[in-house]
């Protein structure tokens, strides 16, 4: 603390090295992180772009994915992700609304749910894969199917969904809850007509983040939705997700790199769109929160 009394000419002498280190380290760390991030992104764009054309999106893969396109894989991915969102949304909303609007704060159930969601958020995706194949695949008899993969992903994104919805609801001022009650609205109407619309952007942001998370997932899908690369005809068919496709091309198919890169580019372009949308919404929320 000696520098608190030092004059500007000898400012910080006792810790000159330490104090100079901080900005250097901060810049260096940032440079390294951004450098690598750019490297990865540029590499994917550079190698992936040549393979991207219209036929890549609409053709079936040929010779184990070396040639052709990714049409059935896109369809499977879409179905898996839609299943996940469709299963997770009602459950996640119900849980969040119940926790915020119907549970007294500090209740034991709320504490347990909150803890279990925190832990669930940290469970490795391969363990979700194990669980999914044992529970949905074997026990419920869904086998390798889009349904089984989608439901496994639903479990994975639930913590995210519940958390964002919870935060959104907690940001809604109590004034509106009392206002709704004083107008004689039922709890159901208050939630449906006032609270959910008011928390709507937070819920949407959470859904988009969940969508991104589900689309990016690989390990949980290999042993649940499987890796059949044909066009699925129903939710009970096995279907190969885009990320599984990338993995398979890179690891198991010699000469699959080009299409792996093109698929990776498709994947990250989609993720960028989804994440930018989610972030714009949450930035908007933040501004609104600051302004009111």
């Amino acid at each position, binding site marked *: 603390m000696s520098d608190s*009394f030092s004059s500007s000419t000898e400012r910080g002498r006792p810790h000159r090295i330490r*104090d*100079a280190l901080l900005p250097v*380290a*901060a*810049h260096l760390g*940032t440079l390294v*992180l*951004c450098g690598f*991030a750019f*490297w*990865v*992104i540029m*590499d*994917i764009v550079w*190698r992936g772009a040549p393979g991207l054309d219209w036929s890549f999106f609409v053709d079936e893969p040929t010779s184990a994915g070396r040639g052709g396109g990714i049409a059935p894989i896109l369809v499977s991915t879409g179905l898996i992700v839609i299943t996940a969102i469709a299963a997770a949304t009602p*459950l*996640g909303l*119900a*849980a969040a609304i*119940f926790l915020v609007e119907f549970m007294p704060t500090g209740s034991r159930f709320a504490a*347990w749910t909150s*803890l*279990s*969601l*925190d*832990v669930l*958020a*940290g*469970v*490795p*995706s*391969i*363990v*979700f*894969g*194990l669980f999914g*194949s*044992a529970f949905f695949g074997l026990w419920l008899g869904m086998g390798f199917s889009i349904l089984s993969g989608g439901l496994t992903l639903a*479990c994975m994104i*639930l913590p995210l969904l519940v958390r964002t919805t919870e935060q959104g609801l907690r940001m809604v001022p109590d004034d509106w809850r009392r206002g709704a009650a004083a107008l004689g609205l*039922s*709890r*159901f109407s208050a*939630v449906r007509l006032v609270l959910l619309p008011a928390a709507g952007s937070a819920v949407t942001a959470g859904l988009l983040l969940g969508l991104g*998370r589900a689309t990016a997932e*690989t*390990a949980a899908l*290999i*042993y649940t939705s499987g890796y059949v690369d044909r066009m699925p005809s129903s939710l009970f068919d096995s279907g190969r997700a885009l990320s*599984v496709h*990338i*993995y398979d091309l890179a690891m198991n198919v010699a000469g699959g790199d080009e299409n*792996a*890169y093109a698929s*990776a580019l498709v*994947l*990250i372009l989609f*993720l960028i769109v989804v*994440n930018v949308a989610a972030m714009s919404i949450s930035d908007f929320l933040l501004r609104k929160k600051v302004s009111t």
Partner: protein
Amino acid sequence: MFLRTPDSRFAFGLGIGAVCVSSILLLIFLFVTGEALPALKNVGLRGFLFDDAWYPTDESFGLVPMLVSSFVLSVGAILLAGPVGVAAAVYRLYYAPSWIRKPYRWLVLLLAGMPSVVLGLWGLVVLVPLIARIEPPGTSLIAGILVVSLMVAPTVTIMSESALEGVARSSWSGAAALGLSRESTLWNVVLPAARGGIAAGILLAAARAIGETMAVLMVTGNIVQMPDGPFSAVRVLTSNIALEMAYATGDHRAALFVSGLALTILVLLLSLTAARIAGLKNNV
């Protein structure tokens, strides 16, 4: 009787949803443990720890080399990602020109959301050949460490940023009133005040690192052996599950569930500790 009004029916429905959500974790434990049980019975803890090697088809279930590999890989990744991640957070909050802050944050979030399989692809195609120039074949522990540290650094950055932002403005003005320089304030006031949140971020990053599957699987060579240097090929617990679930049966399959259970418990401990630390910080 108590379902008389539509409102209590509504609450009841929501409650069912909430119970479902909160029982998923139990369900996971139940099923993973259930599937692991035969191996725990037949092989036993002793087998997993003291068998010489992992030859599950020959009743040899030594998990130790993979446990050690997982551990070394995570520690290595954290040693790289921790400082870099914190530095990146400090830069954005205190050194970055204002126009850079937003795109920079988006870049970090983009990296955080990068699918592990894409990072694995990059590692396999770009990084591994580079390492192979130093020592072939390139698929190695160090490749895994680099890729995983790239994956978890954004976690550290994001958590550190919110911890640093949480340090009250009054601490800043108090330090300024004492005539402390910016660096001095950061070292003496802000970083110590935010250390709980930063530590929690690092623990969460460690949990992510130890649970990471795809990227590691794609770049580490997957040979079951004790790592004896940064360039040796290793196989971690997660990759082992992903590689062998396809054909494993009987005790072998159950053994994979045992390693899944071990992973879950490890990650659970890490995230609980992180939550505890972050919670402590909030109470101060």
